[in-house]
């Protein structure tokens, strides 16, 4: 019986013991450590732009370790792409069309879910932005506004963007899309004030994320 007792206590899952927030930061994939050395800090706002794959890769490690990530107002996302990068699909609820209730829905989810990703609508009142930011800080969630086109989020703690993108494995009528090399850069306020960037394979041939230097180029078939 003593063995079972030690087994029970040694595999303690902190999420069931303490109330939220359980840990001050959510983990990110090691490939993203150069741009997010501290992971995703709870209570912070991380604005993402440039690539949906990058967004999914940011959620992957946290989701795999038990975090709930909600997507609001995002375009349809391939379940395969999400699963290949490491997200746990059963903990990825999506609200594709919040309509006029965008602020209410995002607010309700910030109270309850670990990470809230939302595509920012074209017109958003400044007061709403400030109130959401305050709510994010007090509830200890991570808010990730996804910026497309000319949308902007003025008070983000970290701004992450993907640039460039060259696919390899595909030729003129032969091969197929195998992997893409992109550059991810981050800047922001406080500890993220110094701009950082890193080169990544995103996605790799199996749909994951890897640092650029480590992987040899796959042979073109």
């Amino acid at each position: 019986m003593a063995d079972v007792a030690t087994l029970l206590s040694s595999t303690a899952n902190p999420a069931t013991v303490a109330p939220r927030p359980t840990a001050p930061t959510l983990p990110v994939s090691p490939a993203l450590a150069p741009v997010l050395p501290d992971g995703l800090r709870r209570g912070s706002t991380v604005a993402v732009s440039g690539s949906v794959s990058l967004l999914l890769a940011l959620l992957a490690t946290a989701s795999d370790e038990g975090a709930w990530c909600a997507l609001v107002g995002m375009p349809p996302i391939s379940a395969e792409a999400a699963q290949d990068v490491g997200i746990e699909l059963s903990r990825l609820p999506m609200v594709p069309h919040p309509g006029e209730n965008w602020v209410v829905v995002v607010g309700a989810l910030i109270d309850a879910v670990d990470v809230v990703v939302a595509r920012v609508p074209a017109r958003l009142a400044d007061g709403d932005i400030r109130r959401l930011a305050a709510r994010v800080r007090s509830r200890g969630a991570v808010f990730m506004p996804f910026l497309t086109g000319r949308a902007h989020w003025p008070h983000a703690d970290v701004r992450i963007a993907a640039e460039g993108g060259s696919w390899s494995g595909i030729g003129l009528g032969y091969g197929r899309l195998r992997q893409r090399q992109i550059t991810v850069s981050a800047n922001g306020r406080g500890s993220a004030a110094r701009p950082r960037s890193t080169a990544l394979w995103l996605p790799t041939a199996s749909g994951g994320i890897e640092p650029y230097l480590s992987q040899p180029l796959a042979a073109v078939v």
Partner: protein
Amino acid sequence: MATVWCPDWPVTAARMTSGAPGDAPVAVFTANHVVACSAVARSVGVRRGMRRREAQYRCPDLVVLPRDETAEARCFEPVITAVESVVPAVEVTRPGLAAAGVRGPIRRFEGESGLIDALWRAVGWLTEDACQIGIADGSFAAEQAARLGRIVPAGESADFLANFPVSTLSAFGHAELVDLLQRLGIHTLGGFAALPAKDVSMRFGPAGAWAHRQAGGRDDRPIVVREPPPECTITVELDTPVDRVDVVAFSARSAAERFISGLAARGLSCACFELEAFTDNGEQLTRRWRHPGVLTAPDVVDRIRWQLEGWLHGMAARGGGGTDPDPGDRPTAGITRLRFVPVETVPTGAHQQSLWGGAGEAGERAHRALARVQTMLGLGSVVVPAIEGGRSPLDRTQLVPWGEERVSVREPARPWPGRLPSPAPSVLIDPPRPAKVLDEGGQPVRVSDRGAVVRPPRCFGVGNEAPVAVTSWAGPWPVDERWWDPATASRVVRLQLVDVRGRAYLVVGDMSAPAAPTWHLEGVYD
């Protein structure tokens, strides 16, 4: 605590109403399966869950009776009243099983055997001597004691329970917990009780903690986080006095749901509640109902039916031993008011948590918030992705509405020839948008019957945008489906394109009219 257990109560009740002789083998059936059988029938081999034909094969004289739950409640009502005359504050779990706290009455009757005698005299003739009484600490231990007909001295319940198998807990809805304990090598309640309570509570939540307390034979007042606030008491007023049980139950349905959801909104689930029924003339019947496990709104409505069935149409007590029936027991007017009062609550999140990870408190919070969002925006507004089988990336992503059971239509693990290799496009265009995939002559790219691209694509544009140059492309991946059915046949071809800006797209061309193909954008490798 003392528990009065009437074994095979459905049989006793059915026999009382149908008048079958006492020593005949009787079995009660629902949906052609045995629900309960008398001792005589059991001795010749009839068992619960058996099909009717097999039961009759084993016992040709078997008296077959249908199950009548209202009759069970009605016939149990005098039993409850009789027990109440000996000990106050009876808590009923279901017709056939009632319990009461007995610390005071034991003193009054000078000992446990005196109390049991009194109960027996009150109840025995009503149940045709087919009842057993047990005393122990806590309702769980008392129920086990009643099944053996024993008195467990105070403080010795833990030893009494120690040798019971853990499967005893599965009757209370802890099947997963029992399964897990057996796999861990714990087979007795004593072994389970020996685990540290803190660890059990951490692993299994409040439900597991309750089971742990029961196994340890401690007093089973559940872990109450806070007293249920008075707003949780719901009162139902009926406009006109009603004396038909089903009408009352129907009118009280929405109130029962409000009662349960009011408690759930505070994170509580009811373990014991009082149901008070008032008639037009001021008569009142209050009864406590204890329910192990999760109490749902249909359970509350069932208990309304049982309580009123017994009261409104209660059986007149038959002659012989015991007190004469009090004419004041039956109400003289219809029911006008019902009140639900929570007496004991347990925190919800009394869901089983798995040993390694699991939904836990974070999952509960997320569930509630998503249900609220779905209520606000409508059914289908919240979805969860799942992988489905199929050849196109759109087919392979299934969006399951929140709260619904995921039903897989196509098996994802099958080979699905014709599907594109990974990586999958991260953004899907649903429905696919018309696109221009043009060769150097400015014509839509055509694919020959042999599956070869006639002239390579040179520029690509979506909708009304100006086409941009294509720097590399791959394919075609032809898919010729259901050629045998002209109505649903489809011949499509997929290409991957990379434009000058470095963005990659997945386009699908409909080749059903090979001379005039139509192209659509299906996915973006964003």
